[in-house]
């Protein structure tokens, strides 16, 4: 009977919560991008001012994901 192979070095095991956060990261970024561009188009805020929000969302996702890694 063969044992389960060990994970490759450097490959993190994700908890279900971390996997969920990682899966949500892309859609969240996409929604944020859409909101910023819509705000630009409607004349509320220029995208040239608000684009750092994308970095913040991406960073927050990565942080949350990191917190969930076993």
């Amino acid at each position, binding site marked *: 009977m063969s044992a389960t192979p060990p994970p490759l070095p450097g490959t993190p095991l994700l908890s279900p919560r971390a996997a969920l956060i990682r899966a949500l990261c892309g859609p969240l970024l996409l929604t944020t991008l859409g909101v910023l561009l819509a705000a630009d*188009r409607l004349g509320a805020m220029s995208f040239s001012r608000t684009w750092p929000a994308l970095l913040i969302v991406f960073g927050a996702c990565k942080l949350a994901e990191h917190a969930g890694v076993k």
Partner: protein
Amino acid sequence: MRRGSLFAPLLLIALGALFMVRNVYPDLPLLSYFAKYWPFLLIVWGLLRLGEIAFWATTNRPLPRRGVSGGEWAFVLLICFFGGALNAALGFSNWFPRGRIELGGLEMFGESYDYPISGERPSGKSPLVVIESFRGNARITGTDEASVKVTGRKTIRSMDQAGADGAAQATPFEIEGDANRVVIRTNQDRASIGQRVSNEMEISVPKGASIEAHGRSGDFTISSIDGAVTIDADRAGVRLDNIGGETRLDIRSGDVVRALNVKGNFDLRGNGSDIDLENMNGTVTINGGYTGDVVFQNLSKPLHFVGPQTEVSLQTLPGQIRMPLGTFNASNLTGPARLETRSRDVQISEFTNSLEVSVDRGDIELRPALPVAKVDAHTRSGNITLALADGAKFDLTASTNRGQLSNDFGGSIRIEESARGGTMRGSNGGPAVDLHTDMGEVIIRKAMPDEPPFAPRSVREFNGKRLKQFKGLKQLKQIEQ
């Protein structure tokens, strides 16, 4: 089996529905809608995907490694590039390459700083008043005084007072010239990038003045001027009342063009939304795409309207024409008149002289005044209804390649039926009335004496149309101009 996202099939359904709508209403400016609202596509896409993943997580299904795959991000980039380019190309903004946009009523950063402006220049009785390229609103009124007077305010959007003061000094208001030519200059283009300057001006000019205005965006309201009016603007709403001379408007992306009591010829070019012309004593020429309400009422000279899908020409219009999306309603017009359109349901009542109607897709309903005018109407796909009053004289030939024929006039009109369609013929000595549809019914009926016109004349408020106003002014500071 790998589970795909709902977005792709929903996108296909949405695209199919959009193309379907486009086929039914060819005038619908879908590209323009996409250029304005494409970011919402990204929002819907992101929210859908969020919902999907949340649903999979709560039902313990396996989650995808990436919520949005690399290919999908490439598609997002394509949408952004295409949407931004289209937006700039259609003139909604100068997004490329400077990244500046027009700010609307809702502004999150910076403050509005207000500076009063005023100036006066003596002039002759009929000077040319030139307003150089500016952003903002201008209300121009003719008076009996022999001078050009400007009052109003300059609004500067800036992060702080010092920046606003600097911009105010860099963009001095100027009025100069001589008795024959007065130039009003706002110097807004001297403001640095990131600061937006707009002016709101009340300008009084001699009644005999001519106006030449160049605007980037904003509204012009001009009244009681005996001279010519020439406006050249990127984005503008225009209201004219009581203009004596020729009017030439060239507006790349117009909002509302409303003209009342214009004595000279009227020439409008560009693209926009609504047109509303009433009591026009000169020839009216319009060339461009207008997607909102188009209304003409009481035109004393010929009208030539050339749009991307519709062309209209006629001699005079004592009555009214209305062209909401997908329809053309007119009553009381004098021919020779010609209408050519791709896809509209056409209803015309009380027309005289001659009428020529050509429609690709759409029904045609005609009710000529007496004596009946010469009519030539055909549609490729749609019904044709002709309502004739008692005592009408005509020489009728009405045919359909595929469809039914119906006749209220009994034996005076004979029907020759063919395999799928047929022809009706009947003459009592009047002018030729030729009707033909490739596919659809042809109905000849008796008109009732009390049937209302298809486009009854209406009384509308001159100031009732939506035009943007300045708002949200928070601080006022006076400086040396």
